[in-house]
């Protein structure tokens, strides 16, 4: 039995490791276009100089040896033939598979802004090569513009600012991190960024990238017509599933590769997990899908019971935030409980005993319980003797025969 996995990030490598533990004698091959294993979520630490390429790995350096996995690195998959059960490599080579996992992740979206695609010195923050190629431009006093104030944009901003770059973040919404934070919690970060010299411009969009005769970016013009000079631009305007290379009609593609609750695609023996399946963009679910796909690839049916992906942990300049579920009440039938002090902001949105969203900022101690309460739709109706903010696992306490906690 040969299992082939395309992609070597969270979903791909966790699948590979799980297949090895389930099927000790099966052949496992991982194909990746890059030749290093690293955690994308740490790329900004490479930008900032706080880490090196060798210290952003997420598996042991001998991962492939100890798990007896054949790693075809630096190799791109060009196409796929599900009828022949074969993948075609960019060097023309063919690889047969018995089961195939597509874990090719996502690609940055480049918005249709004039000159953005053509200009030099425009980067994204998705792959290692993005960082290594922009590195020579990163110098103290250099000006940079970040298009997009979401998590990747802010990661890039903080990373560049650590190197003395004068950063401006342009965000269309009325606040940064608009998918994770409400106005109040975003404003605390905006104040912090200002203190650290990061210029945040919200409610504005980039209309045009200004370029010189050598096609190098020299700045941007915004929707309010002001111009900001920049010799380095980072585009952080979201991602899209990396499916363009799939030419086989047997694999149905919607928002990503269409999968069932066992990570099966519409093609026989082909599975998909992680960002490429379009259901999630967060690390923990990519890992879970990878593990789950592995079980099903080994013939052991496993259905994923966790699809809660509206969760994020944020930590910039020492201010920690956990964002869960909805961040604003959908309408006034919801109740909102808020606690606020000089350093802490907590908000819980609930209705009829079900909690739909929460923000914990400045104090995230033991807050994981709320990920369960919200993600599993646990009712808090019976907890009447406590302030809602004091609810913790003791109110749900239950153990299994082997002493684990459960709900």
């Amino acid at each position: 039995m040969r299992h082939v996995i395309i992609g070597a990030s969270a979903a791909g490598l966790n699948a590979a490791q799980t297949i090895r533990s389930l099927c000790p004698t099966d052949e496992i091959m991982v194909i990746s276009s890059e030749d290093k294993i690293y955690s994308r979520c740490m790329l900004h630490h490479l930008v900032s100089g706080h880490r090196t390429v060798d210290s952003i790995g997420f598996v042991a350096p001998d991962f492939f040896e100890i798990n007896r996995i054949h790693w075809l690195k630096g190799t791109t998959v060009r196409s796929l033939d599900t009828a022949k059960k074969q993948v075609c490599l960019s060097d023309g080579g063919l690889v047969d598979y018995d089961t195939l996992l597509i874990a090719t992740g996502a690609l940055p979206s480049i918005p249709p802004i004039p000159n953005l695609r053509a200009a030099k010195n425009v980067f994204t923050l998705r792959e290692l090569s993005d960082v290594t190629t922009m590195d020579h431009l990163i110098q103290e006093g250099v000006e940079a513009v970040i298009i997009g104030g979401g998590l990747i944009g802010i990661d890039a901003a903080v990373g560049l600012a650590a190197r003395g770059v004068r950063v401006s973040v342009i965000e269309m919404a009325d606040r940064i991190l608009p998918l994770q934070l409400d106005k109040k919690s975003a404003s605390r970060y905006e104040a912090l960024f200002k203190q650290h010299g990061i210029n945040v411009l919200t409610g504005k969009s980039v209309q045009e990238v200004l370029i010189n005769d050598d096609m190098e970016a020299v700045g941007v013009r915004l929707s309010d017509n002001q111009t900001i000079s920049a010799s380095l631009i980072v585009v952080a305007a979201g991602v899209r599933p990396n499916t363009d290379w799939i030419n086989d009609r047997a694999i149905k593609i919607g928002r990503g590769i269409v999968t069932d609750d066992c990570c099966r695609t519409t093609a026989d023996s082909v599975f998909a997990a992680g960002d490429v399946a379009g259901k999630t963009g967060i690390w923990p679910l990519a890992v879970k899908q990878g593990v789950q796909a592995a079980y099903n690839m080994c013939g052991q049916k496993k259905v994923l019971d966790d699809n809660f992906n509206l969760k994020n942990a944020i930590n910039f300049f020492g201010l920690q935030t956990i964002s869960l579920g909805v961040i604003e009440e959908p309408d006034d039938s919801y109740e909102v409980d808020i606690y606020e002090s000089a350093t802490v902001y907590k908000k819980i949105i609930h209705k009829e005993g079900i909690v739909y969203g929460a923000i914990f900022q400045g104090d995230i101690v033991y807050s994981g319980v709320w990920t369960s309460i919200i993600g599993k739709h646990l009712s808090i109706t019976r907890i009447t003797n406590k302030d809602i903010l004091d609810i913790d696992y003791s109110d749900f306490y239950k153990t299994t025969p082997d002493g684990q906690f459960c709900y």
Partner: protein
Amino acid sequence: MKRIIIDKSLCMGCLNCTIACMSEHSSGSKSIYELDLEDAANEGRNHITLDQCNKPTPIFCRHCDDPECVTACMTGAMTKNADTGKVSYDEEHCAACFMCVMSCPYGVLKPSSQKDKKVIRCDYCQDREIPRCVENCPTEAIKFVEVDK
């Protein structure tokens, strides 16, 4: 693997376990007589909270069979040892993203209140045969027991 088995009904909330944990992980001597309770460097890895009926409830790391903290860790700093069952944490490699804190379904994990530290979690007192909390529980509400993996 071994797990600290909890009998909630026997817990009287004396916090001996918490003090024991703080002593064991204190930066100075491990003696309870020299423990500085106000020094954030000595914070405990377990905690007792009161449920809505005011019953003390020990919240201790389960070193879960399927640990959400490990799944959430994007650096590989949090790992589950398949042989010992123990979840280990490499603070050096941790990037302080706190996805583990967010992901622990039972609210066991927290960020350290110290700036240079990251996540506070149970390590079964490293190489100690019996974790210090268990040794110090006067009611046997917590026991260190071999369980099936």
